[in-house]
């Protein structure tokens, strides 16, 4: 009986850990995505018109 309860508890903790890991992965993905967009936008702004100014 006690063994069963311990097993149940272990399963619950494992499920919680997996849930948190998944949340963390999503947060990291979103964070990296935002950084990519920010760096891209800032690069375009810094380059300004110079991006098209190429000698032929």
């Amino acid at each position, binding site marked *: 009986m006690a063994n069963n309860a311990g097993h149940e*508890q272990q399963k619950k903790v494992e499920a*919680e*850990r997996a*849930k*948190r890991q998944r949340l963390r992965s999503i947060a990291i993905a979103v964070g990296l995505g935002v950084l990519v967009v920010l*760096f891209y*936008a800032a690069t375009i*702004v810094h380059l300004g018109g110079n991006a098209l100014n190429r000698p032929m």
Partner: protein
Amino acid sequence: MAIETQYQGIRDGAGPGVGDFIALMKPRVMSLVVFTALVGMMAAPGGLHPVLGFIALLCITVGAGASGALNMWYDADIDRHMARTAARPIPRGVVTAEEALTFGTVLSVTSVLTLGVLVNWVAGGLLALTIGFYIFIYTMWLKRRTPQNIVIGGAAGAFPPMIGWAAVTGGVSVESIVLFLIIFMWTPPHFWALALYRCRDYERVGVPMLPVVAGPDETRRQIVIYSILLIPVGISPYFIGLGGISYLVTSSVLGAVFLWLAFKVYRTREGREADRIAKQLFVFSIFYLFALFAVLLGEKIAEWLVALGAFKAIFA
């Protein structure tokens, strides 16, 4: 650390949500940071591309939120014993201390580097200084050691307009120092008004806030002293050309109300009425700071509109 220990206190089936991590960033403090940083940016001479302005503001906001998360990580032991902070994500058991530490550290480093690389390193450096000051000087060193904790620690909350200014100009000037000083001088009467009616909470957890160490009467005296010092600092932007006539009027009138409330707190020392008036000063102090910065912002927008009107008139 064993998984069982790590997740001890986590309620069944109630893992952390996005809202819990937002709560970890102290959104109310963050909103004041965003606002004062925005005013610092708008009031600064010269211009910044709107995209870079948005990035700067985002970095300052995230940096402030990250320091809030690190503060909650470090203070979790006392937060669970105070009514005002017991419902924060770590004491409530929905976010672990390790998660808060990682979250705060990653966001701190990312926000500083992003601001430095994409905008400029003076602003990035000031943001790093703000986060470091809040965590190491205020949270870890001063908060539990001296009743002057919020006087010196208040500098951390005063930096955002300076960072906003630096994002635009790339430097520090008298005007941005004045904006810093307004918040710096405002912090002690603001927090001591709160500490007066939350005194027992701080006493229980051993945080040496002024009312706990020196007593409520001395705190009331200090509130009056700092309020008297705050009023001229609050008006000073007018005299250095940062604020216009509407700023002069607003800061003078609100300053007089601030001082009147501070004296009211000084005189009313007993019972529920004393708590009520301290609370009144606390709430008004938030309005005071918000209004001062809002008028600076309003004047700047009005200036732009006038300039735009003149520009249109010339080229119409």
